[in-house]
C-alpha cells in the first residue's frame, strides 16, 4: 500500500514538474536592479491587460549575461526575451543568440522602430552598430552624466565645470581642504567593468579610441591615450583612499552622504540623490554633460535593451510584448518608475519635466545624443577584463601609466588577433 502510494506520488510530482516549465506564455530574463524592476512591473501590467502569463527571471548583473550566454549556447529556449546591457549586444548577436527583428517588423506592417526613439538609442540596437539589422529594442536610456555639488565647486572657484581641467582644479582644492574626510572627486576604480566604465569617457574626451574606424587596429597606446591616462590618475590623487575597490554603490554613497563633490555617474542614481530618506544632498547635486578634454566630452552609453533569444519558442508573443513595452505610453510609465527614457517625446513631456526629480532630463537627453558606445566587439567581456586589470594596476600605482597603456595594447591585440 505504502509502495503504491509512493509510486502515485512520484508520478504526480513528475507531471507537475513537466507542466510547471510550461506555465508561462513567455519568459523574460532581467537584472536585479531598477531596470529589471521596471520591466517586471510592466510585465505585470501586460499580464493583467492581455491575460498573458509573463514570467520574469531576475538575476544579478553579471549573471544575466552568464545565463543568457548559457541559454544561447545550449539553445535551451528557457528565456524568450533578455534585457541586455548594450555592450553585450555584439556577443549575443554575433554568436547567433539573438533574433533578427526585421521580419517581425514587416509582419507588423512597420518599417522598424519609429523616429520618436533617440537616434543613438536605436543605433546600439543594430548589429553591426548603426548599420546592421535590429536585434533588440531600447528600453532604459542610460548614459553617463557628470554629477557635482555646485555650491562646493563654487567655493573652490569653479562655477560650472566645462573641462577636466576645471574638475581637477576644483577637486584639488576641495580634497586639500577636506582633511581626509571630504574629497573633490570619486570614481569606480574596481578592477574590470567599473574602472573601464569610468575611464572611457575621459579616454574619448582626449580623442583616444580603443580601435581605429574600421576595427582593424588597436589604438590604446597613443599620445591621446597617454593624455587621458594623465588626467585619470590626477583625478585618482584627489579621490578617497581605497578607490581601487570602489563600485557604483561606494560612489553613489559618497555623493549621497556628501563626502565627495563630483563623479561620473549613471542617471538611475538621480532618484537616490533626490530621496531625503537616502540622501543628504537632495536638490544640491547638479548634472552636466561629460567635461571636455582636448575634444568635446562624450558619455558612455549604457542602455538596457530587449532582444528575443533565437531559441525562443514564443517569438511572436515576445515581439508583441517588446513593442508594447517600448511604446511612448509605456516608456513614460517606465520613466515615472525611475528608469530613464529612450524616446524624445518622453524626455520633453511637460508632465515629467515640470517635476523636480526629472530636472536632469535635458542634460541626459543631450548626453545620450553625444554618447559613444563601448567598443563593439563580440569579445568585449574579455577585452574589458584585460583593460580593467591594467587600469586597476595603474590606479593602484603598481605600474606606470605608460606600462598600463602598453600592456593594454598588447592584451587587446592578443584577444582580438589584431596587430
Amino acid at each position, binding site marked *: 500500500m505504502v*509502495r503504491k502510494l509512493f509510486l502515485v506520488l512520484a508520478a504526480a510530482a513528475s507531471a507537475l514538474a513537466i507542466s510547471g516549465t510550461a506555465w508561462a506564455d513567455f519568459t523574460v530574463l532581467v537584472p536585479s536592479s531598477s531596470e529589471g524592476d521596471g520591466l517586471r512591473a510592466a510585465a505585470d501590467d501586460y499580464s493583467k491587460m492581455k491575460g498573458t502569463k509573463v514570467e520574469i527571471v531576475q538575476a544579478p548583473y*553579471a549573471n544575466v*549575461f*552568464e545565463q543568457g*550566454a*548559457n541559454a*544561447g*549556447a*545550449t*539553445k535551451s529556449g528557457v528565456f524568450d526575451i533578455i534585457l541586455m546591457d548594450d555592450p553585450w549586444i555584439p*556577443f549575443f548577436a*554575433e*554568436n*547567433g*543568440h539573438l533574433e533578427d527583428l526585421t521580419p517581425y517588423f514587416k509582419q507588423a506592417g512597420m518599417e522598424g522602430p519609429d523616429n520618436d526613439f533617440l537616434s543613438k538609442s536605436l543605433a546600439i540596437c543594430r548589429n553591426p552598430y548603426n548599420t546592421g539589422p535590429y536585434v533588440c529594442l531600447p528600453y532604459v536610456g542610460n548614459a553617463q552624466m557628470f554629477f557635482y555639488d555646485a555650491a562646493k565647486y563654487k567655493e573652490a572657484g569653479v562655477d560650472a565645470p566645462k573641462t577636466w581641467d576645471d574638475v581637477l582644479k576644483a577637486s584639488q582644492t576641495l580634497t586639500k581642504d577636506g582633511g*581626509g574626510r571630504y574629497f573633490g572627486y570619486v570614481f569606480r*576604480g*574596481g*578592477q*574590470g567593468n567599473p574602472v573601464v566604465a569610468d575611464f572611457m569617457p575621459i579616454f574619448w574626451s582626449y580623442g583616444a579610441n580603443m580601435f581605429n574606424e574600421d576595427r582593424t587596429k588597436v589604438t590604446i597606446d597613443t599620445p591621446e591615450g597617454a593624455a587621458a591616462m594623465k588626467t585619470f590618475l590626477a583625478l585618482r590623487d584627489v579621490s*578617497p*583612499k*581605497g*578607490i*581601487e*575597490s*570602489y563600485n557604483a554603490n*561606494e560612489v553613489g*554613497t*559618497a555623493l549621497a*552622504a556628501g*563626502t565627495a563633490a563630483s563623479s561620473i555617474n549613471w542617471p538611475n542614481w538621480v532618484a537616490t540623490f533626490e530621496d531625503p530618506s537616502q540622501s543628504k544632498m537632495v536638490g544640491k547635486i547638479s548634472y552636466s554633460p561629460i567635461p571636455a578634454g582636448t575634444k568635446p566630452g562624450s558619455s558612455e552609453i549604457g542602455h538596457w535593451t530587449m532582444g528575443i533569444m533565437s531559441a525562443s519558442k514564443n517569438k511572436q508573443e515576445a515581439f508583441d510584448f517588446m513593442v508594447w513595452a517600448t511604446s511612448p505610453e509605456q516608456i513614460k510609465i517606465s520613466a515615472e518608475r525611475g528608469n530613464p527614457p529612450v524616446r524624445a517625446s518622453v524626455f520633453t513631456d511637460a508632465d515629467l519635466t515640470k517635476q523636480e526629480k526629472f530636472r536632469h532630463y535635458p542634460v541626459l537627453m543631450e548626453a545620450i545624443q553625444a554618447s559613444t558606445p563601448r567598443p563593439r566587439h563580440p*569579445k568585449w*567581456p*574579455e577585452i574589458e*577584463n584585460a583593460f580593467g*586589470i591594467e587600469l*586597476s*594596476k595603474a*590606479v*593602484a*600605482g*603598481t*605600474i606606470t601609466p605608460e606600462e598600463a597603456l602598453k600592456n593594454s595594447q598588447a592584451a587587446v591585440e592578443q584577444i582580438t588577433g589584431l596587430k
Partner: protein
Amino acid sequence: MARTASGTQIPELQPGGRLEHWAERHLRYLMLAPTMLILLALTIFPSLYMFYAAVHRISPNPDLPWEFVGPGNFVRLLTDAQFHVALRNTVVFTIVAVTFEFLLGLGLALLLDRFIRRLTFLKTVLMIPMMLPPIAVAITWKIIYEPQFGVLNEIMFRLGLPLQAWAGDVNLAMFSIIVADVWQWTPFIFLLMLAGLASLPVEPYEAAALDGASSWRQFWDLTLPFLKPVIAIALLLRVMDALRLFDLVFILTGGGPADRTKVLSLYIYQVAYRFADPGYAAAISLFVLFVTIVLSTWFMKRMRLAE
C-alpha cells in the same frame, strides 16, 4: 500474522501481480536508484563532460562544432599570465590562511580544554562564524572594510591612526581576505582539535606528570602525537577548501586591485562564464583537481593516515 522479536504482530505481504514481485526482488536496487541517478547526473556525468570539454575549443555559437585541440588548452596554461597570477595568489592564500587557522584553532582548543573547559557558551559563540553562509560573511567583512564608512576605519580614525583602504589597497587586499577567512574557519579547526583533545587517554599524562615532565614536554611528546590524525584531517580539509576559495574574493575585491587577489576559482569562473570559453575553464579545473588529488595523497601518505 508474523511476529517480531519483541512480539509485535505485523501483517504479511499478500501475493500481488508480477510487477510487485519484480519490485520485491529488486527492492535494494530500486531504493538505491534515485541516489545513483542523482550521483550520475550531478557528479559522474559532469566530470566526464569536463574531461571531454578540456580537449576541445568550444565556441559560444551553438552552430559551430567543437574543435578538438588535444592538449592545447593545457599547453595554454604554461603561457597564460593571468593563470600564473591566480595560481600564485591561491598558493599564498592557502599557506598563510591555513597556517593561521591551524595555530589559532589549536591554541584556542588547548586554552579552552585545559583552563575553561566548562564554558560551553563560549565554545558555542566561537563556533558561530563557521555556521554562517560564506556570502553573509563576505558581505559583513565588506561593510567592516569599507574605507569611508566602515567600522574598522572608524576605529582607526578615533584612535588617531591613518585610515586604510583594506580590501582596496594592493598591499592589504590579500591580507584582508585572509583575515576574513581565518575569522570564519578557525572555529572549524578549533572544533576538531577540541574533539581530539577530549578523546585523549589520561594515563600517559599521569605517568608523565609523575616523571616530572613539564607542560610543554607533555604537549610536544604526548598531545601532538596523539592529535596527529585529527590535525591531518583538519589540515587536509582546510587546504582542499582553501584551494577552492571564491565567495570572499568575489564579494570583497573581485580579484583586484591590480589582480592581487585573483584566485584560481575566480579565474575559472571568469573564463567559463564571462569569456565564454568553457573548454579552457575545464582544463584549468582539471589542473586544480589534479593538484588537489596529488597534494591530498602526498599528505595522507606523509601523515600515514591510510594506516
